[in-house]
């Protein structure tokens, strides 16, 4: 809470505060008033005003957004501080971005000054320095994170990153240094130019921002060190005592795990510390689960030159995407200055500086920084409202969620005007599926009737790329009776705008789980991802809620966390958040009223009578308590749970006192909890369990034992599919260890799921993808798997056979797709994912695309359409090519040959270039494209769609046999042994022909053999041929298959058996 006095008064704060703080605020008003009256500004003093605030952010009312704190202590008596108290300055940048601007708009630096952090009386200097005013070589703006230090000569030096106006380099950031005799200026350029840029002191390619300076040592031996850098590049340079002249070479600093930017160097008791903003993200990262969030981490060293040892995180990610450390000791206390987006109307580009104590663990060597706890602590929002999403557990379809997204964003009740990842949950990957979902689960049934969802996008619907609003979506709830998902009934609609909350109402329903299922937007071949900033689920509103009277024992401050809420005939136990009960409130028996907020109840807060009783007053109590067991977990079907189950064992006594509760799981040890009203027992492990409990009241009366059976199957079934090699039918089998397989489902292509009843026949001769999954009795649904039914190419082929080919290419740019060649989609304005293209830094003179079929096909023509975004002669981009030629693979010659009789190769980028040629039978064709060039470089080439036309009679089915022909020696003579195994499923007739004889076998059984050993009557046999004719029936048609084998020769003269 801020109170401002003096010039530039800010609007009053809207932030809530705790009662305890109200005192400080009142004091601040008084002190601030004094300052405003007693401290008229000196003529040369920069503009300032004074205010008092003890709650973070330091300026929290949104009147001024300050970022990148750089604290510095100015001791009493030092230049600029004539007073008797040390002063703490926190120099900051000034975030001036509008509420919907996603960029750092920073034009000046200012400072905050105090003599007592806890008292919170601050003087704010909104504008102490601007780049273009102090540095003649700088452009306005880009006043990023700097630091002020007192130099060797006692003056103040301000190191700042600014843009160098006349720099030719790509990244114009440079570090300049200004000097002043006072901590508040005026500031003059100390070096007359950059001391660091991409050109000085040595050429580099890094982002030269975020300087931090350490003046090390005492008196005449003082040495000056400068660190700077961003985007994971940290550099260090020693400066002369003049604070600007480089000494030695620039060093690259390593050892700072996850370093991103914002280094801050300091020294404590002989140990050097480098604090920094880290962004190593991931589910197991010590720093942050999501990209674009930063933690503050640190490393230590015994010398400014390192080596540095990573020591972990000391501030977890804050509400702004960036984080920035400023560590300082002031009046014997260490502090961390940082920034957040927590001010009124704050954001990632409207940050505000905060300060909290920083504590040390001096039991370790070197001493470690303890994790800083940001204040004020996040408190539950007790505003009555219908949203209940914030109380739900979130699960999503795309675990693990890509690290640029944050699943917590879904129900954090924060909606930004200019959200950036990870302010949303999203699903984008390189290959996006047609469906995604988000699920909320509550610990107890809730009655819901509406939804508000806020979609995020970076692409329009229908593009099939990036993140787009879903094509359609729907809300489903877990039907507690049926044990399955059901669509919400009578939905008012499922709008898909990405502007603001999209409202849906539906018939009230009581459930523990609800999910939003998104059908991704598609361009016909690829799908966009889905992203959601916030999803609220709105509770149905009861006519009224009245809290029953409650009883607690003396000293008992915990109150029941649910209360009964009636919706017509149905009564649910709904979570309630009571105001805090202090030990003083319940110190003696009495009755008083207490307020609370009921989850999802928007009409107002509730009030209850709370009676405090003495636990010892048990005389005459002979009534046994009762005990009830209530399971909660992810409820499945048929009485099964699909997760670990928490069983709440609640005792109730007629007197209202607490109890001793004894509980046991299966045959385990009994556990007794004293002075409780309930205990929670967690039951884990697939299988059937029993929880047994009794309760004993203060008078010693014991309840009847109660027990509850708990059945858990948390593991999804596992299914496997096999595709029959000849019939192409798919057989699926599934197993489930605990509750058993309920059914198997399958879907062909994007078709609907169907229940599997037996082998699934291929629907036609085309290639298909069959998805399959199994559901167990408990309701665990296996993640769908897929199997490919290959195309049946045996029949006659006519028309475009590209879709049944496998496309490959000499090169494909990562943003393009080689499968776009034969996806049968030829949109007017294809996305980059809908074309094949070859742009890269090196663009060769020719590129090719190739189709491969699983058998030779007789082809007669082809056509393709090129794509361009640059003019011919540019030598860059994607241009219309100079020409192309169709080639086929000559199997016998093992070489590529141009097709003959081609009718001419056009190169249009707006119409198909059609070519007919002499029919040729081949299993592979290539279109080899000659790129257009400018004499020194070539443009890339791109094709939207490529078709190849066939006129093919088809393939006669073959009888499967295995022929083995061996040359043998027996008694010095050569023999040719020929074996034919019948791999067909019906008898076949076999004729074996060799140079040494012929043999006919009738009706060789399936799996049986025909075998003949032919005699040569000579001692050696040359390599030859055995010809096997197999006759039989395939699908009722007579078929003859000829198979040849090439037995090697043999010379039996050397065979030892000849001697016999």
């Amino acid at each position, binding site marked *: 809470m801020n109170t401002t006095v003096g010039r530039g008064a800010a609007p009053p704060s809207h932030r809530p505060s705790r009662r305890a703080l109200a005192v400080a605020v009142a004091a601040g008003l008084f002190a601030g008033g004094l300052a405003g009256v007693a401290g008229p500004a000196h003529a040369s003093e920069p503009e300032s005003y004074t205010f008092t605030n003890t709650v973070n952010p330091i300026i929290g009312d949104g009147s001024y957004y300050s970022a990148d704190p750089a604290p510095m202590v100015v001791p009493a008596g030092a230049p600029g501080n004539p007073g008797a108290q040390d002063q703490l300055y926190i120099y900051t940048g000034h975030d001036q971005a509008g509420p919907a601007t996603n960029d750092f708009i920073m034009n000046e630096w200012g400072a905050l000054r105090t003599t007592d952090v806890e008292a919170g009386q601050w003087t704010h200097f909104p504008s102490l320095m601007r780049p273009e005013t102090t540095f003649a070589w700088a452009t306005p703006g880009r006043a990023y994170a700097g630091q002020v230090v007192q130099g060797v000569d006692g003056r103040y030096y301000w190191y700042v990153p600014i843009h160098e106006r006349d720099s030719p380099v790509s990244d114009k950031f440079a570090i300049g240094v200004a000097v002043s005799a006072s901590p508040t200026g005026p500031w003059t350029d100390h070096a007359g130019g950059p001391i660091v840029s991409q050109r000085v002191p040595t050429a580099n390619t890094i982002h030269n921002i975020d300087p931090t300076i350490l003046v090390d040592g005492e008196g005449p031996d003082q040495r000056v060190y400068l660190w700077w850098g961003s985007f994971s590049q940290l550099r260090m340079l020693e400066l002369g005592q003049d604070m600007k002249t480089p000494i030695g070479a620039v060093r690259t600093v390593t050892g700072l795990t996850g370093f991103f930017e914002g280094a801050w160097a300091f020294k404590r008791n002989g140990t050097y510390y480098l604090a920094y903003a880290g962004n190593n993200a991931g589910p197991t990262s010590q720093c942050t689960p999501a990209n674009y969030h930063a933690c503050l981490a640190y490393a230590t060293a015994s010398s400014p030159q390192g080596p540095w040892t990573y020591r972990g995180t000391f501030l977890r990610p804050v509400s702004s995407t960036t984080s920035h450390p400023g560590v300082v000791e002031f009046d014997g206390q260490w502090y961390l200055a940082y920034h957040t987006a927590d001010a009124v109307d704050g954001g990632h580009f409207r940050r505000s500086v905060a300060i909290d104590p920083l504590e040390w663990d001096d039991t370790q060597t070197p001493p470690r920084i303890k994790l800083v706890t940001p204040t004020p602590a996040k408190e539950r929002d007790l505003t009555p409202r219908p949203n209940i999403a914030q109380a739900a557990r979130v699960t999503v379809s795309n675990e693990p969620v890509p690290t640029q997204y944050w699943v917590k964003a879904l129900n954090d009740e924060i909606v930004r005007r200019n959200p950036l990842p990870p302010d949303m949950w999203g699903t984008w990957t390189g290959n996006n599926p047609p469906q995604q979902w988000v699920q909320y689960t509550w610990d107890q049934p809730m009655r819901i009737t509406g939804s508000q969802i806020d979609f995020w996008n970076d692409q329009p619907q229908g593009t099939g790329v990036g993140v787009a609003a879903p094509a359609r979506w729907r809300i489903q709830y877990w039907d507690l009776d049926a044990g399955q998902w059901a669509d919400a009934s009578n939905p008012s609609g499922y709008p898909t705008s990405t502007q603001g909350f999209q409202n849906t109402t539906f018939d009230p329903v009581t459930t523990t789980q609800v999910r939003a299922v998104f059908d991704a937007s598609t361009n016909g071949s690829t799908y966009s991802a889905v992203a959601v900033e916030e999803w609220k689920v709105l509770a149905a509103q009861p006519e009224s809620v009245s809290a029953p009277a409650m009883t607690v024992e003396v000293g008992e401050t915990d109150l029941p966390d649910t209360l009964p809420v009636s919706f017509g005939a149905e009564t649910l136990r709904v979570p309630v958040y009571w105001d805090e009960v202090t030990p003083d409130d319940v110190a003696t028996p009495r009755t008083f009223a207490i307020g609370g907020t009921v989850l999802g109840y928007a009409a107002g807060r509730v009030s209850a009578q709370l009676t405090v009783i003495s636990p010892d007053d048990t005389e005459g109590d002979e009534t046994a308590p009762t005990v009830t067991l209530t399971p909660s977990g992810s409820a499945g079907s048929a009485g099964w749970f699909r997760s670990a189950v928490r069983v709440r064992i609640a005792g109730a006594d007629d007197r209202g006192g607490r109890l001793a509760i004894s509980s046991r799981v299966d045959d385990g040890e009994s556990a007794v909890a004293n002075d409780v009203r309930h205990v929670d027992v967690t039951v884990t492990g697939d299988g059937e369990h029993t929880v047994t409990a009794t309760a004993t009241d203060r008078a010693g009366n014991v309840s009847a034992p109660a027990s509850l059976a708990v059945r858990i199957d948390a593991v999804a079934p596992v299914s496997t599919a096999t595709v029959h090699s000849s019939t192409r039918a798919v057989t699926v089998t599934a197993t489930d260890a605990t509750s058993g397989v309920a059914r198997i489902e399958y879907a062909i292509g994007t078709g609907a799921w169907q229940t599997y009843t037996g082998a699934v026949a291929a629907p036609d001769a085309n290639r298909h993808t069959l998805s399959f999954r199994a559901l167990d009795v408990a309701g665990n649904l296996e993640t769908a798997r897929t199997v490919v039914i290959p195309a049946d190419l045996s029949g006659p082929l006519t028309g475009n056979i590209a879709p049944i080919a496998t496309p490959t290419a000499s090169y494909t740019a990562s943003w393009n797709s080689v499968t776009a060649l034969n996806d049968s989609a030829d949109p007017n304005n294809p996305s980059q994912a809908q074309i094949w293209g070859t742009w890269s830094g090196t663009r060769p003179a020719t590129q090719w695309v190739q189709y491969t079929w699983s058998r030779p096909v007789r082809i007669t023509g082809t056509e393709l359409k090129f794509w361009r975004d640059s003019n011919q002669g540019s030598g860059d981009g994607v241009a219309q090519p100079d020409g192309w030629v169709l080639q086929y693979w000559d199997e016998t010659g093992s070489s590529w040959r141009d097709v003959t009789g081609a009718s001419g190769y056009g190169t249009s980028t707006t119409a198909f270039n059609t070519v007919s040629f002499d029919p040729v039978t081949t299993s592979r064709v290539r279109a080899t494209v000659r790129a257009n060039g400018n004499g020194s470089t070539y443009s890339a080439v791109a094709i939207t769609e490529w078709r190849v036309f066939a006129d093919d009679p088809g393939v006669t089915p073959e009888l499967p046999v295995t022929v*083995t022909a061996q040359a*043998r020696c*027996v*008694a010095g*003579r050569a*023999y040719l*042994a020929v*074996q034919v195994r019948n791999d067909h499923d019906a008898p076949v007739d076999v004729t074996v022909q060799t*140079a*040494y*004889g*012929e*043999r006919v*076998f009738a009706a*060789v*059984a399936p799996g*049986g*053999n*025909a*075998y*003949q*050993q*032919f*005699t040569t*009557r000579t001692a050696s046999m040359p390599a030859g041929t055995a010809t096997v004719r197999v006759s039989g029936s395939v699908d009722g048609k007579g078929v003859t298959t000829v198979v040849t084998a090439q037995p090697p020769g043999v010379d039996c003269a050397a065979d*030892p*058996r000849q001697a*016999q």
Partner: protein
Amino acid sequence: MNTWSRKRLLAAGASGALLAGVVAVGSPAFAEPGDEAGVEVTVEIEEIREPGVLAMSVAADSVMLSEDGSTLLVRQFTGTLPTVTVTDTRTPDEVPEGAAWAVLGSATDFVGDAEQAPIGAGHLGWKPKLIDGGDTGLVSEGEEVVTVLDEPTQPGNNVGLVDQELLVSTFDSGAVTPGEYTVDADLFLRTPGDVEAGAYTSTLTLSLFE
């Protein structure tokens, strides 16, 4: 490992008896009526070198050929080779990789009992017949071998049983063991029409190789 065995069938004497037979069926008379025609058909059995593993036996040690189907130009005497049994009691893993057994047969010239000119072994042919080859299809009889008086029915097979000819073989010993396989063969002696009458004896030697 190569195992083999050899059995000698003092076999198939073309003899006066055969000729008598011819007479009996009214063929042009070359034999003397009432001639004793005791045909000696003997078998000489060598000791099996590796008894009880892979073995061959022959159902009889002699066979007599009798005239059947003679023409004006060619006299033919036929009989049936006694059943040859190949018994393999080994287990498949006892059989060497790639082993295959085969039975070969060759005959000596037919020698007359009364100074007649011998009849070359090239005049004796056979047509093996598989009696029981199991159900694998991997045991097959050898091709027919015809005599020097015949046109070849398979390339180069009009040579008679001068050299060792294939009676029966397997493609893969390991695939057909254990088992007992039987084969016999039609035997036929074809001589010119002017062959001298009398009793003849030849020895047919059967050898089992692996």
